[in-house]
């Protein structure tokens, strides 16, 4: 693990990159990395996340700045700017059921090709996808997702990069930390190694490439 500034982190991410970003309606989103991407105007991004938050909040900052080309998300209902850009053809929005989205990411991070689920069967979500019948249940094949970068928000990071999360800010964060080539963490607190008990570490340090310096 290396410690870098938010600006250095943003400089690692090229135009057109795919980025998984933690957060649920802006709670648990690594704001300093998002701010640095906006400042640098890194564009054409594919964002994989639960939602696009609200206008000007969390991932909504990237949307407002016109930096998102494609969004793979479960919900855009609380961000009218995403909807406007979708209608204007500026953002392609790929809506994925929330439970399917997180499992596709988990599959990507855990070395699996995809998952089988009943969610979406018989709806527009099934369109163009393969189904399997196993033990009499019809299941939809949903393929794994990975990204170039995961932008993770944590509550505590120790000097090695072990992470814990707080309250409802955990959401997608520990899962995306397994599913990207480069994992960058914005932690609310950086603490000495050993402060976090082994039983309480959620994301083990070897998964983390960079922690943003305070």
């Amino acid at each position, binding site marked *: 693990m290396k410690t870098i500034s938010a600006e250095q982190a943003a400089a690692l991410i090229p135009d057109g990159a795919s980025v998984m970003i933690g957060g649920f309606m802006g*709670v648990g989103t690594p704001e300093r990395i998002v701010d640095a991407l906006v400042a640098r105007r890194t564009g054409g991004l594919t964002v994989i996340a639960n939602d696009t938050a609200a206008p000007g909040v969390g991932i909504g900052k990237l949307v407002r700045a016109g930096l998102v080309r494609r969004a793979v998300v479960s919900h855009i209902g609380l961000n009218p700017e995403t909807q406007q850009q*979708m209608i204007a053809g500026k953002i392609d929005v790929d*809506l994925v059921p929330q439970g399917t989205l*997180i499992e596709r990411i988990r599959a990507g991070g855990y070395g699996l090709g995809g998952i089988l689920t009943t969610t979406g069967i018989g709806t527009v979500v099934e369109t163009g996808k393969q189904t399997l019948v196993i033990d009499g249940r019809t299941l939809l094949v949903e393929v794994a997702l990975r990204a170039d970068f995961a932008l993770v928000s944590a509550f505590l990071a120790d000097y090695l990069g072990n992470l814990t999360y707080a309250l409802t800010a955990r959401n997608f964060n520990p899962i995306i930390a397994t599913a990207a080539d480069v994992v960058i963490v914005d932690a609310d607190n950086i603490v000495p190694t050993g402060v976090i008990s082994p039983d309480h570490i959620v994301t083990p340090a070897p998964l983390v490439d960079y922690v943003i310096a305070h």
Partner: protein
Amino acid sequence: MEPQVVIARRIAQELRDGMLVNLGIGIPTLVANYVPPGVHVFFQSENGLIGTGAVPEAGMHHRLLTDAGGRPVTALPGASTFDSAMSFGLIRGGHLDMTVLGGLEVDAAGRLANWMIPGKMVPGMGGAMDLVSGARRVVVAMQHTAKGKSKIVRKCQLPLTSVRPVDLLVTELAVIGFPGGHATLLETAPGVVVADVLAATEAELLVSDDVRPMPLAASGVSY
């Protein structure tokens, strides 16, 4: 009584001690205000919380503790937090006893449409498809009509949330079940007679031999 309150107070009667329950945004959220005395339920927020409590007092909110709509909540003693994979594992894996969701349309076969209106409103399905496909029991909280038009239709015209039929539909006029896959009138609200419900409903409704008055939870005990 406001329609939303009738619906919430009736659905609260479905709560049983020890249940794990997920409440959607809108009318479903109100159900938490009418938990019957002596009944302890675990409320789940799909953003990763079991033990969701009331809105905190002014100045006592925490920016990292919200419900699935991003609004500040409290966590009750014994609450737990977890990631989204666990949250939806609970939902799909048969661990969630009941989900209460809003609706745009429910059809005669009990199928629900509640996540988009093509050309008008495309918010995304969020967790709704997983909830309807995976919860042990699916209850819909929905006003009977919108702009004078029945929301209980012969066949859903809006995109479906799931092909799995819902278990119970509660409106401000009636409680409707789907035994044998067909909408059946089970209860009427105070001051409402069977003919009123039939007149307000587009879908063909079977009428139970024993239509009962809707029991309503007393107001008051919150969480």
